[in-house]
């Protein structure tokens, strides 16, 4: 009969002890790094600066010009070299 309250109190004390042990160690997590105020990006030699609060610009499909074969366009039609069949000689 008397064991249950004692077990409860001991469990509570154990939890308190672990909390006390972990409390100062968890203070390490209080130090965090923040994002920089501005973000510098360099695209094709051109440097641009934007505030970090704005999202990273995503290019629209119409803004992009990609040369073939990355632009999904059909291949340019080139004149195929004329092939003249070689005559088969039966001996």
């Amino acid at each position, binding site marked *: 009969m008397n064991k249950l309250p004692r077990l409860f109190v001991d469990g509570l004390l154990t939890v308190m002890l672990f909390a006390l042990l972990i409390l100062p*160690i968890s203070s390490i997590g209080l130090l965090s*790094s923040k994002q920089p105020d501005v973000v510098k990006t360099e695209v094709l030699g051109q440097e641009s600066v934007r505030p970090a609060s704005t999202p990273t610009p995503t290019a629209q499909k119409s803004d992009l010009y990609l040369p073939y074969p990355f632009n999904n366009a059909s291949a340019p039609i080139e004149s195929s070299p004329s092939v003249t069949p070689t005559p088969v000689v039966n001996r």
Partner: protein
Amino acid sequence: MFSKILVKLIDQAIVPAILLLAVRFVSVILISRQFQINIDMTAAGFNLPAESYLLVNPYPLLFMVCTLTVGLLYILLKSFIFHESHITPALTARVFSLRLSTFIQDSFDLYSQGTIWLSYLYLLALVSGTMVVFNLVYLWVFIVAVVLSVIATVFFVLDIENELDLRQSDTTYSQEEVVLDFGGRNE
């Protein structure tokens, strides 16, 4: 009703917990000032620029480890020299004459203190090891924490062995005494 050991451990854990928190806060502020880094204090904690995180983070951790080591040295000094079980009579007289009798402590007090402070040191070594894996702390901080915790553990175990030897020798002496008494009655 309560477990005496658990209550004692909680009692002993309060002081180092507050001390470690204070060391952490003060050292973060001092080091950020030393490196002239702007640090923001928010409700969530300290915020500092991402590029200076690795510069600031290891040193408060090192200060915490050093604080724990100094505390453990004090406890080890008390357990090796001022331990109630094996303090010399001359030193006892001197300590009492200087009114420093609080230095003399029994095994229960000393070992509960030592257990708590060592646990903090182990936890710090574990956390610093985890942070090394994620490149948040220099490797040498982790090595210092591990080496200091190993040294403290070795000295602590040595003192416990001394204490056990003393108690064993006390027991054998009392057994001999009982045997002699028994022989005396027969005569």
